[in-house]
């Protein structure tokens, strides 16, 4: 019988996308639907003296205009994670209003919504809204935000800190170890601010039905149930069972569509006010100004080594921007998703990270592909490569010297880090060894020497990363400040004819769940894949769900489905035993049928399904039906790891970097569909390359964004990138039923330091030790001249 796990099954969702028949939110038109446009502040920090909507109200087609003075002005969107100050003071958490009333705190903050019959009418009328602003000084840099006298983002607090935090060993102990270390390497840099840039802009339609008193919110989100919960319980105070949140096809997320945004709450509120559906779709500049950004850490770090090159201590201080308001997961990103990965793949015995998280007059920073882990990996992998160069040790050798020895998490225990986590299983030697083989590392070093002699600047950069995925055990994240559980829900409904509908709280926005989830369900039930359908993205269909982020869909969402499959088979066995007149323990299940061991007596999955719904001859006391829902709360995070190696050539005249080769050997545990895993890695790698070479959100001193369009914000295009060479090792996750770890973010985590290490390697003989990202030709050229 055909099996599906581990095979590159082509995606069933592709047909609709390739025919232009996807169902993205902006594609939906509802009867009597209105359109909306926002009036947004051109200032980063300002007093709003007055808002005059008189002329706008007279404009053609206007249905309603609301400002912060209306009753919606009292609502705000919440933060979902609380990180208190080291001294015990509660995290400072400002109201994030749906519309700013008196004070503007970042460019693009909305002061009014204009609702009209057509989009053009809404935009025309929005231009007629007169707002009188008094511009004030702003601060956009997280380090400057903490300097005395910096403009305050929120006047109710004496400085701009939202919280501070530390993790690891005692600071004095770490400092002492650094003082007595054989060699100490140091770095100061900025992990620059990035815009996630899903190609589909955010889009919402709120539809209040007067007769039923129910809302439907169509939204481009990664987690429809979470949005419903936040919207109902924390923003508008409306009953959760009266709200349906629908998120069909979503055009990429990368983190930016996790969060509950002000626009979706405001549309939901306003739809009831006007009694009609309202649509809003962001344009690209609004996306730059209002989608949550990523990264923006200012970093100062020291790493100490002994004579043999073993790391003895690591101390880092960071300023991590929160933006003007706390986005849904923001406080978790530079703390529990970041500091907890400071062990990396190394045996470092002493680690201390100190984080200060200031408010800035910018849009919020939150999780962007990798979320805290790319920042940790960048720091560790740059420090290791820099130290290797300074100590004249090969960067691969220095890594091998410091790796945690292999452990499978079953026969050998998990690895307890200095920074709270216990890794599940790992073989870090394996991925580096394979990566070096794939590249032909020794041959490359010879080629590099020859090239250098002829004036050609070639470089190679290595990065060996680990990440924490599959968040998470709810009790653990709860103790760390999460205000939600982080389990997942998976329901399996066997229809009377033996066809199977699977309902998942995970959400696909490119990951291919409709295919991959059907692969393992079909295998576990021993039925054709065509008999399995995956449903997601509709709170009326699925009991609950925490959604897709942190590479958690398969390890958490998949495990929930497996639990339900197991319940189906357990109940099915009772029905089969009854039909076969045998004891349950004498049955075995394979290839879609229960067979009495050692006989040819069997009953098929389809027959048992029908019997469950037509229970004429049926086990006594057993409920009819074959339909189970399960919640799965993992016992640990999962820890994928890998080696990424970049080869670059730097143009000696212009400083332009060309990525010549990119090699990735990742270990994501067991693999359900290698085609999809490769695709996730390739895409992630290119986002990581984008950070290294091209991308940066820039705010000027006054808080204006200078990079608010595709003319100003450079992202990788097809001709910036070579083919990505991928391979894998397989170290199964020991604590979930599929043995999977997650692959969604690995590329974006491993790639960035590999590329920067390669450029620095190419220029090392010129005395270059570091270049600030993104490595634009200008920056590289300047570094070469110095």
């Amino acid at each position: 019988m055909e099996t599906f796990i581990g095979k590159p099954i082509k995606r069933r969702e592709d047909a609709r996308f390739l025919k232009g028949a996807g169902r993205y939110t902006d594609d939906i038109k509802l009867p009597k639907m209105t359109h909306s446009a926002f009036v947004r502040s051109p200032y980063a920090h300002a007093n709003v003296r007055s808002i005059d909507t008189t002329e706008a109200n007279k404009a053609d087609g206007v249905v309603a205009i609301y400002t912060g003075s209306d009753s919606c002005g009292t609502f705000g969107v919440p933060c979902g994670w609380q990180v208190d100050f080291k001294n015990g003071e509660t995290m400072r958490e400002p109201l994030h209003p749906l519309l700013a009333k008196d004070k503007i705190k970042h460019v693009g903050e909305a002061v009014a919504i204009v609702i009209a019959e057509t989009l053009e009418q809404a935009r025309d009328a929005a231009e007629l809204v007169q707002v009188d602003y008094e511009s004030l000084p702003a601060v956009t840099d997280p380090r400057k935000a903490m300097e005395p006298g910096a403009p305050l983002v929120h006047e109710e607090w004496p400085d701009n800190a939202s919280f501070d935090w530390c993790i690891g060993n005692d600071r004095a102990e770490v400092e002492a170890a650094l003082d007595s270390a054989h060699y100490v390497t140091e770095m100061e840099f900025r992990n620059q601010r990035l815009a996630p840039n899903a190609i589909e802009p955010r889009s919402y339609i709120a539809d209040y039905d007067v007769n039923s008193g129910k809302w439907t919110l169509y939204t481009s989100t990664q987690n429809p149930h979470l949005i419903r919960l936040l919207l109902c319980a924390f923003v508008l105070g409306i009953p959760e069972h009266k709200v349906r949140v629908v998120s069909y096809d979503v055009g990429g997320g990368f983190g930016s569509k996790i969060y509950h945004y002000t626009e979706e709450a405001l549309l939901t509120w306003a739809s009831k006010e006007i009694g009609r559906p309202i649509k809003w779709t962001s344009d690209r500049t609004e996306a730059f100004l209002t989608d949550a950004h990523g990264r923006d850490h200012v970093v100062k770090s020291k790493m100490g080594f002994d004579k043999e090159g073993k790391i003895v201590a690591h101390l880092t201080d960071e300023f991590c921007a929160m933006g003007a308001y706390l986005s849904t997961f923001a406080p978790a990103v530079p703390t529990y998703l970041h500091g907890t990965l400071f062990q990396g793949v190394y045996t470092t015995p002493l680690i201390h990270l100190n984080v200060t998280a200031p408010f800035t007059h910018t849009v919020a920073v939150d999780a962007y592909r990798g979320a805290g882990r790319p920042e940790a990996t960048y720091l560790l992998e740059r420090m290791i490569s820099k130290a290797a160069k300074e100590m004249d040790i090969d960067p691969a050798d220095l890594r091998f010297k410091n790796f945690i020895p292999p452990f499978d998490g079953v026969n050998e225990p998990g690895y307890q880090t200095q920074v709270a986590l216990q890794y599940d299983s790992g073989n870090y030697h394996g991925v580096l060894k394979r990566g070096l083989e794939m590249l032909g590392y020794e041959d490359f070093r010879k080629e590099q020497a020859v090239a250098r002699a002829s004036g050609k600047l070639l470089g190679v950069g290595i990065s060996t990363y680990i990440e924490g995925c599959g968040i998470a055990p709810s009790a653990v994240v709860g103790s760390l400040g999460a205000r939600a559980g982080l389990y997942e829900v998976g329901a399996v409904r066997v229809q009377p004819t033996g066809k199977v509908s699977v309902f998942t709280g995970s959400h696909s926005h490119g990951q291919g769940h409709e295919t991959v989830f059907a692969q393992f369900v079909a295998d576990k039930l021993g039925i054709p894949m065509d008999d399995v359908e995956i449903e997601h993205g509709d709170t009326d269909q699925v009991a609950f769900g925490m959604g897709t982020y942190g590479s958690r869909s398969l390890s958490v969402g998949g495990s929930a489905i497996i639990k339900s499959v197991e319940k189906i088979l357990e109940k099915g066995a009772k029905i089969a035993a009854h039909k076969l007149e045998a004891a349950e323990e004498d049955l075995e299940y394979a290839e879609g049928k229960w067979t009495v061991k050692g006989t040819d007596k069997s009953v098929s999955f389809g027959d048992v399904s029908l019997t469950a719904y037509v229970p004429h001859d049926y086990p006594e006391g057993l409920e009819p039906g074959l339909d189970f829902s399960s919640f799965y709360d993992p016992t640990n995070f999962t820890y994928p790891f890998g080696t990424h190696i970049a080869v670059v050539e730097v143009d000696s005249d212009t400083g332009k970097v060309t990525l010549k080769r990119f090699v990735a050997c990742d270990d994501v545990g067991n693999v359900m569909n290698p085609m999809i895993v490769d695709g996730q890695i390739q895409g992630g790698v290119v986002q990581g390359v984008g950070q290294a070479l091209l991308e940066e959100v820039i705010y000027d001193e006054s808080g204006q964004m200078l990079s608010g369009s595709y003319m100003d914000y450079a992202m990788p295009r097809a001709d910036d990138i070579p083919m990505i060479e991928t391979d894998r090792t397989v170290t199964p996750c020991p604590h979930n039923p599929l043995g999977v770890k997650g692959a969604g973010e690995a590329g974006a985590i491993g790639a960035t330091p590999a590329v920067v290490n390669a450029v620095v390697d190419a220029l090392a003989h010129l005395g270059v030790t570091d270049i600030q990202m993104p490595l634009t030709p200008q920056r590289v050229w300047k570094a070469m001249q110095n």
Partner: protein
Amino acid sequence: MNISITVNGKVHTHDIEPRVSLAQFLRENLDLTGTHIGCDTSGCGACTITLDGSAVKSCTLLAVQADGGEITTIEGMANGDEMHPIQAAFKENHGLQCGFCTPGMVMTAVDILKNNADPTEEEIRHGLEGNFCRCTGYHNIVKSIQHAAEQMKG
């Protein structure tokens, strides 16, 4: 203004405002929502269609500029259930993930292969330079177009 445009082989006559972009016209007036708008400024290429046989970005062309023209959108590529070789190649090579940039990629590929039946990897990458994909890293999109070129030659 009255315009008459042939879209996917069918003539459409509409009275529209002069400021309506071709992308909006296709999506709002003709309900052809396969043409996506990712940026409004020609930067991302999600709105790419072919006009009189050449790929253009429909977000920065006014509908009135296409008056009298012949347009193919993603919806006009398949022949009933049978996908165009380029569409089939994208599926075969996992050339799409979230699917949002995909219509623009496919229509750009039409143009690339029309002008060059046997493009090199470099020529394909250069031809895709006006289209962003944030999911695939372009790897499988390039492979899809290489594969389509082979299929269409044979």
